[in-house]
């Protein structure tokens, strides 16, 4: 498990979390490269089925931020 690198799908709200992730870039804050962001217009858009689908496809974690 030492070299385990999880793949994490992140559903980010366009108006806050996605904007926050953009600002982290402007500030050059460094963080692990494991997340794959998906922009949605609101975290309310995230259907539980999307999360199930992500796990089914083999992702190790799902982040919903908004």
């Amino acid at each position, binding site marked *: 498990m030492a070299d385990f690198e999880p*793949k994490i*799908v992140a559903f980010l709200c*366009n108006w806050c979390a*996605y*904007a926050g*992730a*953009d*600002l*982290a*870039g*402007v*500030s*050059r*804050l*460094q*963080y*692990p*490269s494991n997340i*794959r*962001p*998906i*922009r*949605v*217009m*609101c975290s*309310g*858009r*995230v*259907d*539980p*089925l*999307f999360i199930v*689908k*992500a796990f089914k*496809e*083999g*992702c190790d974690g799902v982040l919903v931020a908004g």
Partner: protein
Amino acid sequence: MDKCIACGLCAEKCPKKVTNAFDAGLAKRKAIYVEYEQAVPLKYAIDENCIYFKNGKCKACEKFCPTGAINFEDQPKELTINAGAVLIAPGCAVYDPGLYDTYGYKKSPDIVTSLEFERILAATGPFGGHLVRPSDHKKPKKVAWIQCVGSRDMHPGSQPYCSGVCCTYAIKEAIIAKEHEKGELDTAIFYIDIRTHGKDFERYYNRAQAVGVRFLKSKISSILPSETGNLRIDYTDKAGLRVEEEFDMVVLSVGFTASHKALDLAQKLGVETDQYQHALTSSFNPVRTTKPGIFVCGTFESPKDIPQSVIESSASAAEIEALLAESRESMTLTKETPEEIDVKGDPPRIGVFVCNCGTNIGGFLDVPDVVKFAKTLPSVVFVEDNLFSCSQDTQEQITQVIKEQNLNRVVVAACTPRTHEPLFQETVTNAGINKYLFEMANIRNQCSWVHSNDSAAATEKAKDLVRMSVARAGLLEPLYDPEMEVNQSALVIGGGLAGITTANNLAQQGYVTHLIEKSDVLGGQALNLYETWQGEDVQKKLAGLIKAAEADKNINILTNTQIKEVSGFVGNFQTTVETAGTEQVIEHGVAIIATGAQEFKPDQYLYGEDQRVLTGLELDRKLIDDNLALNEIRTAVFIQCVGSRIEERPYCSKVCCTHSVKNALKLKQLKPEMDVFVIYRDMRTYGLREDLYREARAKGVAFIHYDFDKELVVSKNQNDLNVRCTSYVLQREVEINPDLLVLATPIVPPRENPVASLFKVPLNDDGFFVEAHVKLQPIDFATKGVFVCGLAHSPKPVDEAIAQGLGAASRAATILAKDTVQISSLVSQVDVEKCIGCGLCDEICAFNAIILEDPEGKGYKAKNIPASCKGCGLCAASCPQQAIDMLHFRDQQIIESVCAAM
């Protein structure tokens, strides 16, 4: 400036470090800089510390700038702008506690100003958001806030007025600091009066007390570094005793002060200022300066907080819109776009453009590898990399490639869609491609910049991001932003001061306005007011406003009128109203809710039992009618917060302190030998109103700060009224026998407000309407086309009600000014075949954008209202039948991205 792509290379290479003023001097930045990360436009600028400007040598930034954006030969230019009106918003300055070093600010680095503390708390601040003290970077265990630093102070350099914002911000800082340290931090706020008079601020104050923020009413004697390396505060507590306490850190809650730049501007423009160098205005024209055609908003007018500044900015816009109504749209240009190519049914031909962003992407990850990878993806027929995808020449080149390669989908892998999607959408539109067939992969802000230490990982992630975007792009559909006609008229509900103001302004702008009032006269609560705090005659001014409304042919006044039914949405409302038994339907494009509130009638302190006991407005009535039996009054007592700031009604009504002080002064003026007492909890004469409080004390009005935890009793002893309470200062019970007892009672909204449910807009726990955003959208609702102003929003004085009334007119005009309203395509779509009419979507939609209908009597079906929809997709995610999908963010489009991420 057009060439700067904000890559930051210039700042990285610049050898000159200077103190960062944005970080309140706590950190360094370079001589070439952006002021802060969220700056708009995000462009670097060079300040006067530049080595080249001083020595004529260096130009490192110019050498390294990848886009040639630096021009040392640039000179200041003088521009002439022809304008019909001018709005000034130059703001104010902040008090410098080092000027006269009363507070030891310069004696210890651990005595900081509140603005410095804000930066310490900020994640982008000098300590990365860790709460540490500047001297030794250790976590403080005890932090003190000192209120009224530079405010409510007659000493040289300070301002006599109250800055109005510091109490609430200090509470906010204390709560955040406590949350940051998970409660293991002792916080104490040293104050004179806690002035949390804004909407919902009192609740915030109560919350601070509940989480253990200590509030100490006190007078500070000194703040000195102690032998232990801490800071010792000597103060006099509310009982008059000398106390000493040590803290690790002291925050000075600095107030506003005059800005010399603002004053210079005012003088150049010929705008008169008051004794504190604020632009002179009046309660009934709160954003007009003394010079016609020049308007003012924000703290240059007087000290104020964010919501009020935003309200005033809208109010100024309304004044200007009315002034320039004739020339509206006379200079508007329309853009021409080429005809769109129909790609429906064509198999996707995707073009991918990978941006290097100079070295911002190309410097940290392997762009050629990403390009090579993109070529292997399904449906991708063209891939290239650009040095700068957003540059003018590349844009033209992309347009060309789309045409040559017959591309019908375009993916740009570059920065963030939040800033660049509109630009690239325009590029594809120029090639005849629908803008919704464009997609971005964010490989800069969310990849190269944040994984700059690991090129291999960043490259892999960039490939995944491109694959995800390409997968989604293949499923994108052309969409057309629909336009709907706007009924260019307004409905104003409530004929009080705010409603009349809105109606008058909209009518002056040229819009037909229906002004409906429940009672038989216009005027609302203002009919009961004697004078504003600035001494203006309310009845005279109100009569003028009503007369103007009655004379305006654009205004249709309906008194004795109530709303029965509302249907429709932004641009097209139909409202059924009833006037004296007759119903009619009013069609309108926007609605402004100005339904007001009223004075609370108490059931204590002998109110209603003894005619010497009045409410604040009842005293005003006597002053208006000039029938106060002055010869019978030797002693008058005002009691504050009667029915306010209690568990049942935990809000502050904002106006009552000033109202009582104003009337106390009036009584003193009418009969100087009268003994006048004001019994209070916190004296909240905020902003410039502090002058009245000072004047009242100078003229002999006695203020009794009473212990709220001990009973205040009003009784009748034979025929004498008797008021008993416990004074903090005297530490004993005081007893007064007044001939006039005035109870300052709260402003209460109606118990039932059908307007809220008719327009489906929310009320808060106190019964006031809830705006879309407390700070930034204080007039709007989340529901489009409906606005709020006046007491319906929250308790407020005349000038603020008028400003909000004007502001509502301006917000409404943003819709009324156009014949059509363009609706976003990113809305919900209902599949009526799948819909089972459960109504969950209707219930959860915060914007009234989805409703249940039973058009054929065959059971309910959901129907979306695109004009009201904000595209959040909550309905789609919640629908148990998956009968709802979101255009451009369809289930399948999102799922395709999810699959491609793996």
